[in-house]
C-alpha cells in the first residue's frame, strides 16, 4: 500500500479547513440590534423549475414589507429584507436558511414548495426561528415545532372540500382525477379527494397521473373521456391547467372542471377563456372581491410589478403582514432584537394572530394552520366570480 492517498485526502481536508477559516473571519457582529433594523428573511426559488411561484411569493412579501417600512416600520426600526434564492432544492434551502441565521435574521417568510420547506422547518426547529410559509400546503409542514406557520390551506382540507362540493352542490355521481404524480401538492389533494369521495359515495371512475414535466395529456384525457365522468378534478397549478383544459376539449371531454387553489391565475394563461368556462375551484381569495383590502392590494401590486397578483403573491403578502404584526408585539415588550426571547415573543404573537388579511380573516389552530374561510370561485363569462362560501 502506497501512502499518497493520505496526502490527497489530507489536501482535501486542508482545503476545506482553510476555506472555513478564511470565511469565518467576517462573520462576527452581524447581529442587528446595533443598527436599529430588524432583519427579515425571504426565502424562495427565484431560479429553476419553481421560479414562477417563488418570484410571486417574493414579490408579494416584499411589497408588504416595503409598504410597512414606508409607514415607519416597527417601533421606529426599519425592516431589512434579506432575500435568498434556493432554486427549489432542499439542500440549497438549508444552506440559505443557515446563511440567514448567520446574517442575523430574526424571522423568515418562506419557503415556497413543500420538500425544501420541510427541510428548513426541521433545521429551524434547532434555533426556534419564527417562519411562515405562504404556500407549502402539505399537512406535515407545520409539524416540526411551534415555530412554523403558514398562510395557505393544507392539502387534505382542499381535497375533501372539493369532493364534498362536487357531490353535494354540483350533484355529481362520477368523478375523474388527473394529477401530477411528481408533485406533493397535487398528490396530497388527490388523496384527500379520493378518500372523501369514497366516504360520500361519489364514484371515482378514473385516476390518471402524469409526470412532472409533461405537457401532453391527450392520452390520459382520451381515456377519461371514454368513461364520461360528471366532474374532472385537476389539482395542479394554473399553467398546467391551461394545457389540460385545452387538450380536454380536443379529447371531447364535457365534464365540469373542479380544482384547488392552484387554479387561481388560470385565466391569464389559458389561450381561450371559454376552455375553462364553468369551472369551480376553492380559493382563499378572489380578485373579484370588492373589499377595500383586496382592491388596495390589487392596485398596489399592479403598480409595483405591472402584473396581476396570483394566489401565491396574495398569500405571501398576508404572511408578511402576519409576521410584521407579530414583530410589533415582540418589539412592544422591549426585548433585544434577535434574542431567543424576542423570537419566542414573535412566535407567541403569531399564535395569537386574529386579523383581516387579503385572503380572508386569519387565526391559527393548534397546528399553526390558518383557520380561514374557503370560497368557491366559479369561472363565468371569462371572469372569476364568487360562487359561495363552503
Amino acid at each position, binding site marked *: *500500500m*502506497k*501512502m*499518497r*492517498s*493520505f*496526502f*490527497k*485526502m*489530507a*489536501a*482535501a*481536508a*486542508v*482545503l*476545506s*479547513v482553510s*476555506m*472555513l477559516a478564511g*470565511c*469565518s473571519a467576517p*462573520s462576527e457582529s452581524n447581529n442587528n440590534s446595533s443598527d436599529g433594523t430588524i432583519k427579515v428573511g425571504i426565502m424562495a426559488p*427565484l*431560479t*429553476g423549475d419553481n421560479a414562477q411561484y417563488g418570484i410571486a411569493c417574493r414579490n408579494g412579501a416584499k411589497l408588504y414589507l416595503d409598504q410597512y417600512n414606508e409607514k415607519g416600520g416597527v417601533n421606529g426600526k426599519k425592516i431589512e429584507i434579506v*432575500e*435568498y*434564492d434556493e*432554486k427549489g*432544492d*432542499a*439542500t*440549497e434551502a*438549508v*444552506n*440559505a436558511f*443557515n*446563511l440567514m*441565521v*448567520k446574517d442575523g435574521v430574526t424571522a423568515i417568510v418562506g419557503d415556497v414548495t*413543500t*420538500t425544501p420547506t*420541510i*427541510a428548513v422547518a*426541521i*433545521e429551524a426547529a*434547532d*434555533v426556534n426561528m419564527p417562519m411562515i410559509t405562504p404556500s407549502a400546503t*402539505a399537512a*406535515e409542514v407545520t409539524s416540526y415545532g411551534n415555530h412554523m406557520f403558514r398562510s395557505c390551506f393544507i392539502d387534505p382540507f382542499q381535497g375533501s372540500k372539493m369532493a364534498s362540493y362536487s357531490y353535494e352542490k354540483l350533484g355529481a355521481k362520477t368523478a375523474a382525477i388527473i394529477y*401530477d*404524480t*411528481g*408533485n*406533493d401538492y*397535487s*398528490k*396530497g389533494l388527490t388523496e384527500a379527494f379520493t378518500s372523501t369521495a369514497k366516504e360520500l359515495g361519489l364514484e371515482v371512475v378514473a385516476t390518471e397521473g402524469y*409526470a*412532472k414535466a409533461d405537457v401532453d395529456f391527450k392520452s390520459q384525457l382520451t381515456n377519461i373521456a371514454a368513461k364520461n365522468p360528471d366532474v374532472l378534478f385537476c389539482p395542479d397549478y394554473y399553467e398546467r391547467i391551461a394545457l389540460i383544459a385545452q387538450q380536454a376539449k380536443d379529447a371531447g371531454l364535457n365534464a365540469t372542471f373542479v380544482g384547488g387553489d392552484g387554479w387561481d391565475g388560470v385565466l391569464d394563461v389559458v389561450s381561450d377563456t371559454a376552455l375553462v368556462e364553468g369551472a369551480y375551484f376553492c380559493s382563499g381569495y378572489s380578485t373579484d372581491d370588492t373589499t377595500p383590502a383586496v382592491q388596495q392590494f390589487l392596485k398596489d401590486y399592479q403598480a409595483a410589478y405591472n402584473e396581476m397578483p396570483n394566489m401565491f403573491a396574495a398569500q405571501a403578502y398576508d404572511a408578511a403582514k402576519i409576521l410584521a404584526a407579530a414583530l410589533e408585539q415582540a418589539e412592544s415588550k422591549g426585548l433585544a432584537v434577535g434574542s431567543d426571547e424576542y423570537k419566542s415573543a414573535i412566535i407567541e404573537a403569531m399564535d395569537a394572530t386574529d386579523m383581516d388579511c387579503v385572503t380572508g380573516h386569519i387565526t391559527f389552530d393548534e397546528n399553526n394552520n390558518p383557520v380561514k374561510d374557503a370560497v368557491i370561485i366559479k369561472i363565468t363569462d371569462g371572469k372569476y366570480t364568487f360562487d359561495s362560501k363552503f
Partner: protein
Amino acid sequence: MKKTIRIPMPVRYLINFALLAVLLLTGNFLVNIVDRYYAKVLMLIGINIILAVSLNIATGYLGQLPLGHAGFMSVGAYTCSIFVIRASFLTNYIGEAATFWLGLLLAGIVSALFGVIIGIPALRLRGDYLAIITLGFGEIIRVILLNIDSLLGFEFTYGASGLKNIPKNTTFLNVFVLVALTCALVHTMMKSRHGRAVLSIRENEIAAEACGIKTTYYKTLAFSVSAFFAGIAGGLYAGYLGILNPNTFGFMKSIEILVMVVLGGMGSMLGSVISATVLTVLPEALRGFSDYRMVTYSLLLIIVMIFKPTGLMGAYDFSLSRLLEKGINVMGGKKPVKKGDGAK
C-alpha cells in the same frame, strides 16, 4: 551528482497519520466554534467530494461517461434512511451512531449491487451510448422511487410526498472520516494491480484484452465501486437533510456531479476534491446575486471550459511526499523543515 533522498515508507505513514489527526482535530474544533452555516456547508462539501471522487472512478479512471450517478446516490440515500427508520429498534442495542454506520454500509452495498446489475448490460456499450443508457437507468430509478408505493400497496418511499423524519445523524466527524476513507481506498485501489487493469482499459480496451485482462470483470468492478461510494454519499446526504424526494435525484443532479469531475480534471483526485469544494462554495458565494445567480454560474462554467478544456488540474495529481522529497533534495539533503509546509 547529489543523491536523491526518498522518505522511507514507515515515516510516510506516520507523517500522514499525524497530519490527518491534526486536521481532524482542527476541523472538529472549528466546526464547534463557527456558525452552523459554515459547519453545514463543510459537511456538504464532504458529501460532494465523495460523490465526485466516486464518479471519477468510472469517468476519469475507466474512461466511460455515465450520466446516472444520481441514481446510485438515490438508491443509497433511500436504503440508508429506510433502514435507519425501520430498524430504529436497533438503536436500543447498539446506539444511534452505530445504526447509522450500519445503514451507510448497507447503502453502499445495495448501491454497488445496482452498479453490478446496471453495469453488466450498460458496459457492453461504448461512449455516448453508455452515457445515454446510464441516463436511462438513472431516470428509471427515479420513476420507480416516485411510483413504487402504488405498486406495493403500502407506504415505502412515500413518492412525491417525500420520505420524512429521517434521523439527522450526519456530523462533521463521520463525513470527514468517510471522505478520508473514500480517498484512501480509491487511491489504494487505483495503485493496485486491479487499478492498473482499469487504467489499461481506459488507454486501450482492445490492447488490454489482448494482454489477458478480463475487461468485462474490471469494468463492472470499477463501476460498482463507483456506485458503492455514491451510495454512501447518498446515505450521508439523507442524514444531512432529514427529508428525501425522488425529484432531487434527477438527471440534473448527475450532470452536477459530472461537472465537478470534468472541471477538476478527469482522473485527478485532487482535481475532483478541489472542484467539488469550489462548486459547492461558488453557488453559496453567488447567493447574494439572487435572480442572476445561475446565469453567473453557467457563464463561469462555459468560460472555464473554453480556456481550460482539460479541467482545472488536468491529469495532475498531488503528492505530499513527492513535494517533500523535492524540497529536501533542493535543500541539499538536509532534514525536512516542517511537515505542514508541503500541504500549503
